[in-house]
């Protein structure tokens, strides 16, 4: 029953071209000249290196977006990893992101002024934390299209109580104000714009109009004189350019499928990988015509799935420690060739190859993983060829 649908879906993907770039790092095709200009100027913001004089810190992880998202070009995945913390309170099942203690993102560096004032060179992990998570830097190509997918499309895929009995029960995460989330490994953040605006502060210590307060160091007020640049440290127009760059980055160009790749596409479906890595989502309305009502072959449902206790780390929003967002598989191959460092997969980079990442699937994905493990060697290779083409 499922196969005809699958075939027509794949045909649709092939026909519509999915607003993909002809070259990695290009914007989505069909932008207006003004949007194109905004994209190019936004790239400058993404690569902009901040200093303490221009707003860096006092606590920060890196001095530019492109310092982390860099492989093989700005916007890609990267070798850098950071730490996130939270406290999962079993008594009332409350997930505390430890905002008053400096969480959920821990800053690994401080400016010389803060170092001199406090005598520390990074933010301490709060004692209250019940878990410390490692987070690797993901690629961002095509994420503007994911931003434009309507909530209704995500909710339609959810099956929180596994009514259809297939062992897979995705559910959406929710942000602090109750809106449905989709960005970050825990799918906590509802919109790309908010993720980008938040990234300025948590990664670089650069305040903007929407988040005019600095990150603290372990929740302590910043000592006098350690944050000389007046807030907000960047103006909204610069934030908007930065956002346009990330938003308009096209999905990575898809590699032509070899014969093995075509076989891999079949085993991807017969192994039920598509139950979570949903091949195609559709965008809704958008102020940008080029991303309005488009298919996006991201291979995700943007929902949380319980991946088993071996994978568990922090909670965030409604996501329990073992729940993670289905990682989009578009651009997967980029993480095999990072500028620096070894290939790494999954939220904390624990898997050193694509195959290892699949083997580490547990929880709701255990059945599908076992199907993969039961395949012939030739079909394993076929699956990998397919995944690398995305």
């Amino acid at each position, binding site marked *: 029953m499922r196969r005809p649908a699958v075939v027509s879906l794949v045909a649709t993907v092939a026909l519509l071209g999915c607003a993909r770039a002809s070259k990695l790092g290009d914007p989505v095709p069909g932008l207006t000249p003004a949007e194109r200009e905004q994209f190019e100027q936004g790239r400058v913001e993404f690569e902009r290196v901040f200093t303490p004089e221009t707003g860096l810190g006092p606590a920060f992880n890196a001095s530019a977006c492109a310092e982390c998202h860099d492989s093989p070009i700005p916007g890609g995945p990267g070798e850098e990893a950071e730490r*996130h913390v939270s406290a*999962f*309170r079993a008594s*009332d*099942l*409350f*997930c*505390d*992101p430890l*905002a*008053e203690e400096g*969480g*959920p*993102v821990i800053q690994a560096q401080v400016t010389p002024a803060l170092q001199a004032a406090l005598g520390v060179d990074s933010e301490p992990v709060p004692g209250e934390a019940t878990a410390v998570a490692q987070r690797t830097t993901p690629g961002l190509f095509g994420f503007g299209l994911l931003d434009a997918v309507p909530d209704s499309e995500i909710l339609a895929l959810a099956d929180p109580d596994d009514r259809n009995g297939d062992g897979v029960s995705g559910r959406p995460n*929710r942000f*602090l*104000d*109750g809106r449905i989330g989709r*960005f*970050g490994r825990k799918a*906590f*953040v509802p919109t790309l714009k*908010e*993720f*980008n*605006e*938040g*990234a300025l*502060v*948590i990664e670089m210590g650069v305040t903007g109009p*929407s*988040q*005019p*307060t*600095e*990150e*603290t160091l372990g929740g302590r*007020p910043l000592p006098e004189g350690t*944050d000389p640049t007046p*807030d907000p440290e960047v103006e909204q127009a610069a934030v908007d350019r930065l956002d346009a760059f990330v938003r308009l980055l096209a999905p990575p160009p898809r590699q032509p499928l070899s014969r093995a790749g075509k076989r891999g596409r079949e085993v991807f479906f017969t192994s039920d990988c598509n139950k979570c890595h949903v091949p195609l989502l559709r965008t809704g309305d958008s102020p940008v015509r080029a991303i309005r009502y488009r298919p996006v072959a991201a291979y995700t449902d943007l929902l949380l799935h319980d991946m088993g206790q071996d994978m568990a780390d922090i*909670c965030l929003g*409604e*996501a*329990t420690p073992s729940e993670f967002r289905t990682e989009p598989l578009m651009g997967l191959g980029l993480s095999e060739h990072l500028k620096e460092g070894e290939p790494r997969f999954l939220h904390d980079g624990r898997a050193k190859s694509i195959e290892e990442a699949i083997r580490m699937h547990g929880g709701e994905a255990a059945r599908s993983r076992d199907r993969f493990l039961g395949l012939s060697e030739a079909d394993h290779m076929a699956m990998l060829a397919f995944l690398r083409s995305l």
Partner: protein
Amino acid sequence: MTTPMIHRPDMRRFGPLLLLFLALAVAVAPSTRGATDRSSLRSLTGTLKSVDVKGRTVVVLTGVGHSIRAIRLRVSPGCRVEVSHRPASLTQLAPGQVARVGYEPAPRAAAGEAVGAAMAIEVSTPRGGVR
């Protein structure tokens, strides 16, 4: 440095709450000689982190992306509390609930101090947080 993140209220969702604020503003305006005019009222929506019934304070989590802030608010004596559109008391509030809070900002608040006085707290879902 200490301004909390302010959400511009969405008229559709905040309509009833705004009406409540307006009513409150009108009611208290004469006694405070215009100090509580409409424009000074703010609102935020976030997750309750803690509720101190005795000390009459609540801490609400709001944020922009992964940049999260804990906003501390005093609960004013006349504060109207609602759970699922029914009048309620502070004791019915619990960590994890999503709350809309209307508050009168404090003129100046240092880090860790209450940034204002809550005039209305509205929880639409009795449960919240992680299942």
